[in-house]
């Protein structure tokens, strides 16, 4: 972090005070945004700086450069700036950013907004050179802040072009103070004062007017003209000779100004112009001289467009426009020297432990070898602090041949590519590395990468091979790599339907992750472990795992790390699915929805797609088919769904079920014309496909075919103890036999299914199989009453009654609608209202702004048709939304 970027430039006392503009600024103090928008060299930064000093305001100052287009970098500096004034603000936000969970800007910003809530005084967050920002996410962040910060926190944007935020809307709400070109340019009076006070030149009033006309009040031009006037006898004559256009003046004047200096100073100015900021030591190093301190002081005295960046006068930069002019001259006159200068700068930054700058300069110098070693030195830190944008940027500047020279770079860059969904590039990189290396430890990691990649894309033949290689070769003491190796091994086993092995692998990953406290791996592996147990029919343990993990997350993150909580999205969805399964529909949908909403904030394509699928499945189980179909169609458009085999299998299966219950024959046919590879490697896909096919055959009346296929599967599932899928098959067998009036057999199968599910109380998987199952249940109930057998004794009558009641309820309410129900956040708000919390307390508890709380409250009142908060709570209890 470069502290100088956070320092307000201190205008020298010699500058004139712009009283009128200061009044304009101060009179706009009620407004949220101050926008100073004008071209270079009109004194924008100086004006704001004077305003701060003159009115003694609290502020944070952040001078942007190109590297600040990364949202994480931007947030980091913004927080650091605010913390230099209020040290308690943003502590949690900073921690959150270091968790590698890639939280969204909204999560971070919400933290900051809440922290700033307690500040009572007026505070200005100032962004200088905001035109540098091209990343729309940062514009959105600024807009988010403007909408959510409390009244006394102000934002100031200093920029050369208007920012891409909805200015018109803000203007119509009277939230902007505007300072523009026409306000900033100097008139003849200003020019007169400026020359007298700052440059010690006495102008006649005619000269001043002439200068105003010719420079159009452009301050930088006036300053240049003043500098080239130094020591000239006839001021009037010089001004008369000036051409009347300030663009030309600029080119002409810079030459004039440079002429006045010795060769040494000229060299210094030109060579140091490559630096965004400099101090004496850095200048000494790149020019191989000793007296930089002296030169800098001299330049500062002469007002040579040099801006001190800190109070101690250690760091400086040139005025941007002046720097551009110098750089141009450097390129015209000493083109050959430029790479050497950058290399020198790179060395200095390296010696001073500023590796990112060192890296940037070495890349500009085109010294790839050096750049690569610097990249290697810094990439681990960038990775750990989630600066994926920078890793992608730097990584993209090297060829594959260059990258594979350093395996550490390759691995981190690979994961960043992989997680960002740039799968092809990731694969090219890792294959190249595989060709180039013979080192065993490196090979082991390559196997892990390849294994993850192959398992992800469903190339199980290869994945399985790499999985064996990876787990055999990877070193035990490296938790992250070890965990990943077992994670993808579990995935391969799952796709091969080797569930016990798969579960063991996921459990092992979870253990490794929990010991090393890697929450990311832990949540993925336990989510998967829970899924495996589910299809094995070990419902209660599956539920227990996810419930424990959720409690664990809540305990660790209570009031603290909402970003880490994002990782719990998968777990919320699983817990929700389970609740729906046992007919706790409202609660279940709420949790699943919450999980899905959380996933959207993680920016992790895999999480989003998985949670979307689970939500669609939840809607299917709850009988809300339209919503499920909408979601499953949306899932089709996600790139991750296409690439990720496991998701692809499950979403196609859900599609089959949905189109069957809604009887959309035209859409079903293509789903059963798929060509599925046979063999162990595709066992999961084959089974799930066959089950749906049998379900389809039953609706088509092809009972014999369906039964044959189902029986075959049942045999093999029994052998493998995969009881979850078996239950589904038994229900289908029961249904098939009841259709051909073999009720005895049908009831046998149904009883088998009931015995598996009655202990945990699964309800919904019965409901969607339709009336055949309902009728069988009724018959089953009658049989249990009238006949005694070992089998029927074990059946739980209460459970069967519960199933029948659920069927009845479903018939009465064919479409349970949540349309008008409260959103999950509204419900959270309502719960807190019921606890008698005030808006402010609710905002804090839910990490949202007070404005958002108010919106929620308004919606709650509308939806519950309540007049006030008390009535809303009463009505909610009446409707069973809140426990009474």
């Amino acid at each position: 972090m470069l502290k100088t970027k956070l320092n307000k430039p201190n205008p020298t006392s010699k500058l004139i005070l712009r009283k009128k503009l200061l009044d304009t600024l101060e009179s706009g103090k009620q407004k949220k945004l101050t926008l100073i928008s004008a071209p270079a060299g009109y004194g924008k930064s100086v004006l704001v700086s004077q305003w701060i000093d003159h009115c003694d305001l609290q502020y944070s100052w952040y001078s942007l450069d190109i590297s600040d287009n990364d949202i994480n970098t931007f947030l980091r500096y913004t927080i650091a700036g605010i913390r230099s004034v209020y040290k308690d603000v943003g502590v949690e936000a900073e921690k959150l950013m270091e968790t590698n969970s890639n939280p969204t800007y909204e999560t971070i910003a919400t933290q900051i907004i809440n922290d700033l809530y307690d500040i009572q005084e007026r505070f200005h967050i100032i962004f200088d050179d905001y035109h540098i920002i091209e990343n729309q996410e940062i514009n959105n962040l600024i807009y988010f802040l403007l909408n959510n910060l409390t009244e006394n926190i102000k934002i100031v944007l200093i920029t050369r072009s208007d920012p891409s935020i909805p200015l018109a809307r803000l203007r119509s709400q009277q939230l902007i103070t505007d300072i523009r070109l026409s306000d900033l340019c100097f008139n003849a009076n200003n020019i007169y004062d400026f020359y007298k006070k700052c440059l010690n030149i006495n102008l006649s009033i005619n000269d001043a007017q002439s200068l105003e006309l010719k420079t159009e009040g452009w301050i930088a031009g006036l300053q240049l003209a003043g500098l080239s006037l130094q020591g000239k006898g006839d001021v009037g004559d010089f001004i008369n000779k000036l051409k009347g256009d300030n663009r030309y003046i600029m080119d002409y004047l810079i030459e004039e100004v440079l002429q006045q200096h010795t060769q040494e100073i000229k060299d210094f100015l030109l060579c140091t112009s490559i630096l965004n900021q400099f101090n004496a030591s850095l200048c000494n190093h790149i020019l191989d001289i000793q007296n930089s301190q002296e030169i800098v002081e001299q330049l500062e005295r002469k007002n040579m467009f040099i801006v001190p960046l800190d109070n101690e006068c250690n760091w400086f930069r040139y005025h941007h426009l002046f720097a551009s002019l110098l750089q141009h001259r450097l390129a015209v006159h000493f083109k050959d020297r430029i790479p050497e200068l950058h290399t020198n700068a790179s060395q200095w930054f390296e010696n001073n432990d500023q590796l990112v700058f060192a890296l940037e300069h070495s890349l500009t110098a085109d010294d790839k070898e050096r750049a690569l070693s610097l990249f290697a030195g810094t990439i681990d830190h960038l990775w750990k602090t989630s600066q994926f944008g920078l890793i992608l940027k730097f990584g993209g500047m090297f060829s594959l041949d260059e990258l594979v020279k350093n395996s550490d770079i390759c691995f981190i860059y690979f994961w960043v590519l992989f997680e960002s969904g740039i799968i092809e590039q990731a694969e090219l990189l890792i294959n190249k590395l595989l060709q180039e290396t013979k080192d065993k430890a490196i090979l082991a990691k390559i196997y892990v990468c390849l294994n993850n990649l192959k398992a992800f894309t469903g190339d199980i033949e290869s994945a399985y091979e790499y999985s064996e290689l990876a787990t055999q070769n990877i070193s035990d003491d490296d938790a992250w790599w070890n965990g990943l190796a077992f994670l993808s091994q579990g995935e391969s086993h799952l796709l091969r339907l080797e569930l016990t092995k798969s579960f063991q692998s996921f459990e092992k990953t979870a253990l490794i992750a929990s010991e090393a406290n890697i929450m990311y791996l832990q949540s993925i592996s336990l989510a998967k472990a829970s899924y495996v147990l589910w299809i094995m029919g070990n419902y209660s343990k599956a539920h227990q795992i996810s419930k424990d993990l959720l409690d664990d997350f809540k305990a660790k993150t209570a009031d603290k790390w909402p970003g880490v909580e994002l990782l719990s999205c998968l777990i919320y969805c699983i817990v929700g699915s389970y609740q729906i399964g046992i007919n706790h529909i409202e609660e279940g949908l709420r949790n699943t929805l919450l999980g899905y909403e959380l996933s959207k904030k993680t920016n992790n394509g895999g999480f989003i797609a998985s949670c979307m699928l689970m939500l669609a499945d939840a809607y299917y189980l709850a009988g809300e088919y339209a919503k499920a179909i909408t979601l499953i169609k949306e899932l089709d458009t996600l790139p991750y769904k296409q690439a990720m085999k496991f998701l692809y299998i499950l979403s196609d299966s859900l599609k089959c079920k949905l189109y069957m219950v809604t009887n959309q024959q035209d859409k079903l046919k293509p789903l059963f014309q798929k060509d599925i590879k046979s063999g162990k490697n595709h066992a999961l896909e084959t089974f799930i496909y066959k089950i749906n096919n049998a379900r389809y055959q039953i609706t088509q009346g092809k009972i014999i075919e369906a039964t044959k296929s189902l029986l075959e599967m049942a045999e093999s599932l029994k052998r493998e103890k995969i009881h979850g899928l078996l239950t589904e098959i038994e229900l289908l067998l029961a249904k098939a036999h009841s259709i051909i009036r073999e009720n005895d057999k049908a009831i046998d199968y149904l009883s088998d299914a009931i015995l598996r599910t009655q202990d945990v109380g699964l309800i919904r998987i019965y409901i969607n199989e339709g009336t055949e199952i309902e009728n069988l249940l009724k018959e089953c109930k009658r049989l249990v009453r009238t006949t005694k057998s070992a089998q029927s004794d074990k059946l739980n009558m209460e459970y069967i009654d519960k199933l029948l009641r659920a069927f009845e309820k479903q018939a009465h309410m064919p479409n349970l609608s949540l349309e008008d129900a409260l959103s999950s956040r509204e419900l959270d708000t309502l719960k807190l209202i019921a606890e008698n919390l005030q808006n402010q307390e609710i905002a804090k508890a839910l990490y949202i702004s007070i404005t958002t709380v108010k919106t929620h409250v308004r919606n709650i009142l509308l939806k519950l048709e309540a007049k006030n908060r008390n009535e809303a709570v009463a009505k909610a209890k009446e409707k069973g939304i809140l426990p009474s």
Partner: protein
Amino acid sequence: MAEKVIIKIQGHLDENWKDWFDGMVIKFEGDVTILSGKRKDNAYLHGILNRIRDLNLTLISVNPEHK
């Protein structure tokens, strides 16, 4: 996309700024400097426009070339 673009700016810009306007030809017409060149893509054009902004040049117009 690969049509030509004509950018007019106020005043006379010295020829040696050519490097800063990658691939553009600099001509003068009266008091106006005319930059012309192939419009490679949007990013290219925005880059040129940003440079005009950062050098504090007054932008008069941006047009496709008339055939």
